[in-house]
């Protein structure tokens, strides 16, 4: 276990380094914004003396490194943290529910395809999955709204809203379409990769042994091929987080949900660059922590990995 801890520490250090680089890049980008901040803040009341005073208060003439550390310090003020957390949680809910639904669907699909490989159904499923991969997620979301909220008025067209006292049933109902959209956008690429992983496992010696001792194809896939194939699955899921986030931004807009993506779009639309930079950092942190979790899980799941 000692080696495992050391591995985790190494990964955590790497994570911090990545975040430091991302934050520095974001800070520099924001710094490149055109315009004289004190002058614009004062507007019509600007006099040279006032501009100088405000410039000193804001610290815009300080060395870049000092400004950066000040900015970093501001990010951790309790009020801002609470506000950011309130938009991070809905996004995490969407990500985990969508990811979970995509995982179950694509594993089921992939093992079905692997069992029926070469058949017409296998090919048809592959083509349908590929088509969903090529369609923009926001378009798929709009289509789902059109079908299941407009033509068949079964489900609400918008995602859950951050209203206090919202009942649980309505929350789940409102989550169905956004989660389905994210899952559809993700299933396509996952099921293809999972299918390849299962097929690799099916070609292995131990599967031939399992077949030779007379197990049914279903048992072979379920008990012998699925487990080793789960390892690449963990990696793929971890690596898909940035792509899923791309879709989350679109989905939060389509279903007018509160979250990191819609807040970012709102901040940019409202020219609140400081908020936008903050949100980008949080998003980078979420994906980085996600991939760290995936790597840790991988290390646990693969008995061959030794932490020497």
């Amino acid at each position, binding site marked *: 276990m000692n080696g495992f801890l050391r591995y985790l520490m190494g990964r955590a250090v*790497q994570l911090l*380094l*990545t975040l430091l*680089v*991302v934050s520095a890049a*974001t800070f520099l*980008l*924001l710094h*490149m*914004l055109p315009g004289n901040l004190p002058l614009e803040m004062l507007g019509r009341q600007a006099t040279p003396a006032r501009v100088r005073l405000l410039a000193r208060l804001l610290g815009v003439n300080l060395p870049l490194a000092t400004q950066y550390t000040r900015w970093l310090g501001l990010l951790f003020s309790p009020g801002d943290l609470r506000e950011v957390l309130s938009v991070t949680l809905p996004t995490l809910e969407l990500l985990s529910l969508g990811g979970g639904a995509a995982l179950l669907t694509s594993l089921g699909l992939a093992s079905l395809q692997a069992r029926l490989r070469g058949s017409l159904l296998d*090919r048809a499923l*592959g*083509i349908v999955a*590929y*088509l969903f*991969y*090529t*369609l*923009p*997620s*926001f*378009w798929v979301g*709009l*289509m789902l*709204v*059109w079908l299941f909220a*407009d033509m068949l008025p079964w489900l609400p067209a918008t995602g859950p809203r951050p209203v206090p006292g919202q009942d649980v049933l309505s929350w789940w109902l409102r989550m169905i379409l956004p989660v389905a959209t994210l899952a559809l956008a993700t299933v396509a690429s996952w099921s293809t990769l999972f299918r390849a992983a299962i097929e690799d496992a099916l070609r292995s010696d131990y599967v031939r042994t399992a077949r030779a001792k007379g197990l049914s194809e279903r048992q072979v896939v379920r008990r012998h091929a699925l487990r080793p194939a789960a390892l690449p699955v963990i990696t793929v899921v971890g*690596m898909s*987080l*940035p*792509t899923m*986030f*791309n*879709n989350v*931004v*679109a989905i939060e*807009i389509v279903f007018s949900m509160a979250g990191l*993506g819609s807040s*970012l*779009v709102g901040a*940019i*639309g409202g*020219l609140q*660059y400081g908020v*936008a*930079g903050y949100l*980008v950092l949080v*998003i*980078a942190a979420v*994906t*980085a922590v996600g*991939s760290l979790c995936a790597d840790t899980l991988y290390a646990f799941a693969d008995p061959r990995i030794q932490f020497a």
Partner: protein
Amino acid sequence: MPRLAAAAPWRRLSGYPLFWTGMGLFCFLLLFAFLGPVFYHRDVDTINVAQSLLPPSWIFPLGTDVLGENELGRLMIGGQVPIWSGLLAAFGATALGGVLGVVGGFGGRIVRSVTMRVADGVLGVPQVVVVLLIESIFGISTWLLVLIFALTAWPLTARLIRAETLALRVTPFVDAARAQGAGQMRLIRRHVLPNLFDALVATFTTQFTNAVLVIAITSFVGAGLGPPWNWATMINANQDALLSGQWWLIVLPGLLFALLVVSVYLMAEAVRAAFNPQAQMSGRRGSPA
């Protein structure tokens, strides 16, 4: 690719029906988006609320959109940005990733680990987020979008190319060439690069799909930031038409995105199959999928 058999892949390629399907689709989209507007541009850019959301007619085969503009004409122009910037972004990302992948596989120990650490870091940041932030600061330009995509998407290609390069590095034929005194550059040019062709084409397709989708998403959510408009901004502008009965204003631009991606995919898969001596496709069924 062996030199003697240089003509064979092209001959094989021309025998694949799916290649011609992809080629046909792609050429259709090219003509539709770039030649079409030259001849057909009635009311494409004239806002006229009086004729908003007209049903299809002889004058407007696909009706008009919310602002009363000719939907068919706008669909044509709306394809330009996804096609050219998608291709350019994918080429940029593939080229950059290819170079850095070979460097990451062939370089010394420090070079190798630095390229991969940088790749890991870049890969972790969602592209839509980066594009939105940078565009909001420097203003929207399609060139900028292409540049950002290439600079953020290369690790995907670099990882694969690096893995392939590392595997090629220890193959007997590379060893043999090295033993004959071939220099590093010659090894890479004559023995490694030709064998990376398949992987490069494969990642190009992935990059193109991702580029088109990233362009689509950023255009869709960032529609308030301004031009250049394309199929995605059209979907955003006409969203409400979906509920008032003009569904085609939303359905068609989305399907055109898929058509574009599929056409490039079909061509690329056929090229891969034709140039890969191990994977022969039967000429008749010609299924690269």
